[in-house]
């Protein structure tokens, strides 16, 4: 299962076809409304399309992406794409970074240099990390999983990737969104190999079983979660029940894919209703083009489907017995105010050995992209005593 060097090179025909589809896009009439209340604003979408057609240069982004060292490895007969960047110095701690939906490994590009070479970015050379950034199965350049319930096994794949493939006996891990679920699974199943985990949220499924002794702050947090599900949770419901019904249009229409994805970057980032204050059109389109060119929007829905079907219940019965109570692995939380919901510390302490708790001044769900410096500094500080 030796890993192979990998260079990203989207075929020219794919880009030609993309341009052709964009020029044909049936956008319908738009009024002057600037509201996003009903989903992606149609005028914004028009602007995004014209940027995509005339200003956006995928090859430029591709060249930038290829400045990092990419590999593909067959882990348990599962082809996985990952970036592997060595840290400066002899004592770099290996650190695994896991993305979520609807982002990708691109989420971490800004933060990688800050972690591999802190001295060059105002930090201490002793804080250097070897950084590994895989693509989740079914997203981008990692193949889609062939079996059901794959999201529950990604922690196992990552462990093999880090230990057997890359030869690290002990490493740290960070994640948000699906990345926090995967990172938690990893810590609970392979505690001996994991020096510590650093999360930006408490995975949503912990709220499936409500304890009877909730504090007022926890009650408020869970009520906010419930309200989010009502008002903003439809995407998860359809992705979890009908990924194919939804995915067909998104895989056939680039403008449809953009409309479906871009709304999340606006509502989950700390952009104060100004999306471009956090993501340039180019940032947004690089991520959307990655999903488009790899045709992976439908398979990126599989974690939602797995959770609905293989079900939290089945997974609980398989795994929960190993994991009663809080994990012993040292855990840090960096809470970014613009994220979907910010849990109170006592909620996190029910499930984790919380060693560090950092409420951030700014930033949102896509913290590594929005506030790379804040995140890098928090990662350095947390892992410093765990090296």
């Amino acid at each position, binding site marked *: 299962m030796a890993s192979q060097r990998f260079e990203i090179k989207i075929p020219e025909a794919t880009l030609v076809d993309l341009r052709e589809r964009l020029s044909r*896009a049936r956008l319908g009439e738009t009024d002057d409304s600037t509201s996003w209340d009903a989903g992606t604003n149609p005028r914004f979408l028009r602007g995004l399309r014209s940027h995509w057609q005339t200003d956006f240069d995928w090859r430029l982004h591709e060249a930038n992406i290829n400045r990092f060292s990419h590999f593909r490895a067959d882990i348990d007969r599962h082809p996985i794409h990952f970036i592997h960047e060595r840290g400066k110095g002899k004592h770099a701690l290996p650190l695994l970074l896991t993305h979520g939906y609807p982002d990708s490994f691109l989420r971490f590009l800004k933060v990688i240099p800050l972690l591999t070479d802190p001295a060059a970015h105002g930090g201490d050379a002793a804080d250097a990390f070897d950084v590994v950034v895989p693509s989740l199965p079914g997203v981008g350049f990692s193949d889609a999983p062939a079996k059901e319930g794959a999201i529950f096994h990604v922690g196992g794949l990552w462990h093999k990737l880090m230990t057997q493939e890359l030869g690290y006996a002990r490493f740290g891990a960070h994640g948000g969104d699906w990345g926090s679920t995967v990172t938690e699974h990893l810590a609970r199943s392979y505690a001996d190999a994991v020096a510590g985990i650093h999360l930006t949220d408490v995975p949503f499924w912990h709220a499936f079983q409500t304890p009877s002794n909730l504090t007022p702050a926890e009650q408020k947090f869970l009520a906010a979660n419930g309200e989010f599900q009502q008002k903003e949770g439809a995407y998860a419901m359809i992705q979890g029940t009908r990924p194919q019904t939804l995915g067909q249009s998104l*895989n056939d229409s680039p403008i449809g894919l953009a409309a479906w994805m871009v709304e999340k970057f606006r509502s989950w980032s700390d952009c104060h209703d100004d999306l471009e204050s956090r993501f340039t059109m180019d940032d947004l389109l690089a991520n959307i083009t990655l999903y488009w060119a790899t045709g992976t*929007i439908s398979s990126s829905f*599989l974690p939602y489907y797995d959770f609905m079907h293989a079900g939290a219940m089945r997974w609980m019965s398989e795994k929960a017995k190993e994991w009663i109570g809080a994990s012993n692995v040292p855990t840090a939380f960096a809470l970014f105010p613009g994220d979907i919901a910010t849990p109170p510390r006592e909620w996190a302490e029910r499930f984790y050995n919380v060693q560090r708790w950092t409420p951030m001044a700014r930033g949102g769900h896509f913290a590594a992209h929005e506030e790379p410096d804040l995140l890098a500094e928090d990662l350095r500080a947390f892992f410093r005593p765990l090296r």
Partner: protein
Amino acid sequence: MKLEPFQIRVPTAVLDDLHHRLRHTRFTSGLRDSGWDFGTSPLYLRELVTYWLESYDWRAREAVLNQLPQFTADIGGRIHFVHQHGEQSKGRALLLLHGWPDSFFRYHKVIPLLAAPGHHDADPGDAFDIVVPSLPGFGFTDQVPPAPHQPTRQSAERLWRLMTEGLGYKRFAVAGGDGGSPLAQIMAIDHPESVVGIHLTDLGWHVGNVDPSTLSKAEQQYLAAGKKNFMTDMGYAAVQSTKPQSLAPGLNDSPAGLAAWIIDRFHSWCDGEGDVERSFTKDELLTNIMIYWVTQTIGSSIATYRGETVSPSLTTADHVKLPVGLALFPKDAGGVPPRSFAERTLNVQRWTEMPRGSHFAALEEPVLFANDVRAFFSGLVAEARWEGGNDGKSAV
């Protein structure tokens, strides 16, 4: 009010563009199932797209649709409708209201059964003049900006004006299902002087909000089943009710994607034991999809879901006092409700539990549907509810 004859004529450029898109469909990959477990079967979708390209003949379907007498009326924007005079209808009119994701096409099979029952093993005296509009936001009815306040109530008002001012019916009957059910109920509540009674195939989307403390055991079971069904089968409604503008661009740009989205509903809501073609032919499925595609109305049709979520037209406090006939088809979403549950909001005068059929009853089981509609409204004729009604001459 200006009424004009109407014929469907889709520009050839639209059909050429459609074929180009279908030929270049990027089918999904990466999902490990070819059946219906992940939504619309990728295998079936490929089969349907191939048929669409190679065998489906829109011009032939268009010619068949154009055999129906169609008109438009300008009522704050153009409303498209079929107006089929009945044989010996004596001015009795029936308004048929479709829902989502169907269209006026839902009723094409029952128009002859209801307009000319004498030719279809039924009493010629039961004939109706039939009016089938394309609902505001749908098909060949003009897209007007959706009303921010109670959009379904405002659509009901426009359709009432069509029937009264436009076509000259002082009194008329109304039948509807899916979105057509709340429309019919609102018309009965707002205009009891014009509506003789309403025939429904479901109770409307608002009834789930009833005070749970007042429910009987059977009602609780019915609602619990509905809630379970909502979680597994109603993601489409959750999206359409909250973020329609994030969904619509893809559906309006990808014919295969539009088909996948719509076919999922026809598959889920048919009585075909998982085989959608036991209930509907490919031609039928595609003609309905084409009505959305060529008019680019998928976005405006789903906008109603959000409009009604933000500003509902009906609540469980609303009660229809006019006579209501209910024809309940066993495989419809959520199953057959307890009669007591229906009676909370409706004056139920006829209750028919059908032996088979589902959500798109008029398309799937046209004879069962038409017989029940006739039986219900002829009972009302006997009660002389049509008295003082129409003279048999309408505007068109």
